[in-house]
């Protein structure tokens, strides 16, 4: 059975490590914060200029000066620091963030990612996504395996305008987990979601992949 949004977030939370500084994207990646294991210290960065993001405020305690990159009201923690957008992206571009978990419209077998623009349809802008994929040490994509039309989002080559080239290291979908192999060797199937078979992945994936030696069913 394919993973639900929350199960995807729960699986993505396994990418976290104690002491990590992490930037989470919009959508399913946001939910990852709900699954940070007890006792693990993870510090969330918000690219509008905050390190150490706390939970949403209680009603009546919203502060218009304190928002996350999704423009939602949030709270601070004792360890919080604030800084300018230039400092924030120096942190990102300079490789100081350990992990970025992002959604995507398309990912290719060489690690290319497209998640900011549909020509003629969507002109919202890339925000900080291009900086994140270019600068963060490890980029993990969490997304549905197929788009609304049922077509594979895991492709040989992206068809939409790219956010970054060869930047994704791992792809977590509702069906499975792929690693992007170095040197253009394609994808390696690392895990299957509970009840999903390798044949099913084969039928629903456009990209080239091969099973990893340690392939396991979750």
């Amino acid at each position: 059975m394919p993973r639900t949004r929350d199960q995807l977030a729960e699986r993505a939370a396994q990418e976290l490590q104690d002491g990590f500084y992490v930037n989470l994207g919009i959508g399913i990646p946001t939910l990852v914060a709900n699954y940070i294991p007890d006792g693990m210290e993870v510090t969330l960065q918000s690219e509008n200029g905050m390190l150490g993001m706390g939970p949403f405020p209680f009603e009546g305690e919203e502060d218009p000066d304190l928002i996350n990159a999704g423009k939602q009201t949030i709270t601070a923690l004792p360890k919080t620091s604030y800084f300018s957008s230039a400092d924030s992206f120096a942190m990102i571009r300079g490789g100081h963030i350990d992990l970025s978990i992002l959604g995507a419209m398309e990912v290719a077998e060489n690690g290319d990612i497209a998640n900011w623009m549909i020509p003629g349809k969507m002109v919202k802008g890339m925000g900080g996504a291009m900086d994140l994929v270019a600068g963060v040490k490890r980029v993990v994509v969490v997304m549905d395996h197929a788009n609304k039309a049922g077509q594979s989002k895991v492709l040989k080559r992206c068809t939409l305008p790219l956010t970054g080239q060869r930047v994704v290291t791992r792809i977590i979908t509702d069906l499975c987990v792929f690693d992007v192999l170095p040197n253009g060797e394609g994808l390696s199937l690392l895990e299957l979601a509970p009840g999903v078979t390798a044949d099913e992945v084969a039928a629903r994936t456009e990209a080239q992949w091969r099973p990893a030696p340690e392939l396991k069913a979750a």
Partner: protein
Amino acid sequence: MRKIVPDAQAALDGLLFDGMTIMAGGFGLCGIPENSILALRDSGVKDITAISNNAGVDDFGLGLLLQTRQIKKMVSSYVGENKEFERQYLAGELELEFNPQGTLAERIRAGGAGIPAFFTATGAGTLVAEGKETRVFAEREYVLETGLTADLALVKAWKADEAGNLVYRETARNFNPMMATAGRRCVVEVEEIVPTGSLDPDGIHTPGIYVDRLFVGAFEKRIEQRTVRPRQAAPIPAATGAEV
């Protein structure tokens, strides 16, 4: 004391002209120069090139200047919250230059610091790199991006002293400090002006040298996405960001 003026209209007096380039601080509606934007609208100045991370919403922030068609071109990273923006752009009525958010921030920082251009890996191999010089350092491709300056920077800070030293509050800092350095003129609106000497010199975010005119504004501080958690909830909901 010489920098302090009564209001936004006085602050902008003599600084505006058609076709000018204006930087406006803020992220979404957080930390935007609300008062100067209203005064800019009332001035009627037109054909503005506006450099700002976002374009406000339809009826607040820079969205007000889109409604009145005073903006000719926007340089931004994300404009998703503004429907009028999308309409004008798709109809060919508005020029648009998208910059990755970190590239935009660094271009402004560089402009204010006298650095004409810099190389960044952000956007390499994407539409952003088209027509730009690229260069390989240590086997990685980088894109040459130019520094940005403006005729006028509109900045919002929390507190100032009479010498123009500024302190920002929480995430309302965002693009404001870099913009303060990158405008040939810099107009700052604050919530409070305190006597010189009462701010901690170690805690000044923007030194007064960058500030030309300063006034105390009245702020609506509109919240774009009011998000709360119930008081009784056991699990703490996620409060995390988007690539916006």
